[in-house]
């Protein structure tokens, strides 16, 4: 049972659901981010570079993780891709290549017809991400009617199906209800339903489970995984939770203070983290395979305690491995075997086998 097939088979399906959708980039990627930089300039204060030198590729159907603490720039990256950053006080440079074009140069009008249909997004907090005064039905149908020429009735019928897909019981009734009448998990299902309504080619999920109860989190991840697989959409998973990435992603990019510090396949990264920050993140996660009673090791300091990248390595103030160079020389992101790494003094890659993870 796939949503795709139903969409395409359904007699009510609008002609050319996928019509007008772009091709892949010349290099076979669906989306290719190159040297993305985002600068916030608030009047009267010095500019702050939230994202810099960010590059990664997403191929069709691929699941990519973007991992980092809050303030690491991962959400800004996703908003930049979606063209959702505010116009004022924000400077964006670099390239977001999609359909052989740079999305950053698109007009807002053109972006808006791409959003929701080609690239969709699920946000972190389902409690605040749904409009409290608009019935759920309208919130689902509006995206369908925006991108497909559907009558109100057809859109409602489709919305009902979608709700069923995401596991919301009694969709007919729910469609008439308002968000506050739903639980948090239900709401996140709603948001996922909306995001997948137009069968996007890329789904960006920005911390989709953070705000949910632990028990719900797994369910939602499972649902996401299943639906993404069914529709064949690529997934960009943004999270601070390596656990989430471990179960989902093919490739992982770790960000710190606006830059990618390590980028590798899941297996490589989890098996042998080389950037001290990646290592720190992994050590602070409880693992089923760690010895009983082994203490979790948090990363010392706070993410606000940074060194500007222009002066050296931003992580240096919190880094156990920091050497003099880290405070003087800006590290570059260099290929390092099966990964890319931005570090003067990486962790050794000779971790014992039993500590390697196969998620």
């Amino acid at each position, binding site marked *: 049972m796939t949503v795709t097939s139903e969409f395409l088979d359904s007699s009510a399906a609008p002609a050319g659901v996928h019509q007008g959708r772009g091709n892949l980039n010349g290099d076979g990627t669906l989306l290719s981010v190159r040297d993305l930089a985002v600068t916030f300039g608030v*009047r009267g204060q010095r500019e702050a570079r939230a994202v810099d030198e960010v590059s990664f590729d997403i191929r069709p159907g691929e699941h990519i993780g973007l991992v980092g603490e809050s303030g690491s720039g991962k959400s800004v990256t996703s908003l930049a891709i*979606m063209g*959702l950053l505010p116009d*004022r006080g924000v400077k964006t440079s670099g390239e977001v290549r999609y359909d052989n074009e740079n999305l950053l140069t698109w007009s807002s009008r053109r*972006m*808006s*017809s*791409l*959003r*929701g*249909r080609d690239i*969709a*997004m699920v*946000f*972190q*907090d389902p409690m*605040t*991400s*749904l*409009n*409290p*005064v*608009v*019935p759920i039905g*309208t919130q689902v149908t*509006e*995206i369908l009617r*925006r*991108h497909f020429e559907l009558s109100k009735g057809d859109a409602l019928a489709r919305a009902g199906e979608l709700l069923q897909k995401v596991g919301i019981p009694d969709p007919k009734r729910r469609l008439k209800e*308002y968000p*506050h*009448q739903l639980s948090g998990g239900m709401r996140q299902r709603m*948001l996922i339903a*909306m*995001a997948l309504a137009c069968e996007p080619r890329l789904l960006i999920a920005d911390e989709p489970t953070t705000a949910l109860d632990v028990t719900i989190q797994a369910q939602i991840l499972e649902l996401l995984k299943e639906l993404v697989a069914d529709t064949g959409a690529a997934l960009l998973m943004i999270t601070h939770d390596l656990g989430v990435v471990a179960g989902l992603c093919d490739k992982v990019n770790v960000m710190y203070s606006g830059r990618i510090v390590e980028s590798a396949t899941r297996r490589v990264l989890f098996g042998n983290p080389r950037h001290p920050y990646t290592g720190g993140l992994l050590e602070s996660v409880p693992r089923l395979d760690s010895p009983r009673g082994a203490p979790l090791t948090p990363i010392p300091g706070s993410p606000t305690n940074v060194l500007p990248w222009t002066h050296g390595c931003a992580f240096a103030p919190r880094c156990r491995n920091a050497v003099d160079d880290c405070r003087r020389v800006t590290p570059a992101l260099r290929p390092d075997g099966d990964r890319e790494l931005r570090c003067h003094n990486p962790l050794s890659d000779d971790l014992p086998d039993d500590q390697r993870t196969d998620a």
Partner: protein
Amino acid sequence: MLRFVLRRLALLVPVLVGLSILLFAWVRALPGDPARALLGQRATPEGIARVNELYGFNEPVLQQYLLYVKALLNGDFGRSIQTGQPVLESFFEKFPATVELGMSALLLAIVVGVPLGYYAARHQGRFIDTAIVSGSLLGVVTPVFFLAILLKLVFAQWLGWLPTSFRQDARIDATHITNFYVLDGLMTQEWDAAWNAMVHLALPAIALGTIPLAIIVRITRASVAEVMHEDYVRTAESKGLSPAVISRRHILRNALLPVTTTIGLQAGLLFAGAVLTETVFAFNGVGQYLFSAISQRDYPVLQGYILFIALIYALINLAVDVGYGIIDPRVRVS
């Protein structure tokens, strides 16, 4: 919903009772004999005796109060010292004019204020925003009567574009059924009468509407600015919705909730403003009548009108709350 309304109405009772006590005490606090205060210059010995009997001014205070309330419940709000007209009758005669003026002012305030506030919020920090915000501040601090005088001077006296006073040209033979002149004109298809009434409404409505307009601009701006950054607006944007749908359905529908409440609160302001505006424009409504009652010391009129205005004010706010419940589903259920 019904229970909500009933509960709110029940809450109104102590306020009205308290108000009646206050107004009852007020007449007794006025300098001089209460019966004389109520009858004014025309106080004849018989009149005083009659009022004394009617309100029991010679009885114990509690008895007096009960008699007063009994009279109120019988619809006897006393008679004007000036005209001898029953207070209730004059109120209903003049109320349509004030409602017409107040509604026009409010309509103006909403129709102009909401888009301005919205526009300012969407262009926060730019020149146009600064201009709108400064303008609204000026609107808030400019005294109604000063504005009314200015408008009258410039548009009526100097430029001669609009009439200076009255609700309708005395030259026009208009049929008055409801005393809402515009409505009357439309109902009887006396188009020139309706138009004339509207022209006469223009300046007073602008004068009276300016403060609510300024307040609505400010609240809308603040509210839109807040809602604009809500997650659900970002969600809507991420769905690729057109800016129009985002504004209307996702921003305004939320942002206007606090504006609704404000509109209810404006009602009190409008009544006070109507006293000043109607006076400047010789607009024959409750406000002008109150003004002359104030200057003529027409206490029965003041007493009755204040009670009515408080009641209407409370009902308007109740209506606004009910309306709020209709717009905001979160309130509706609870």
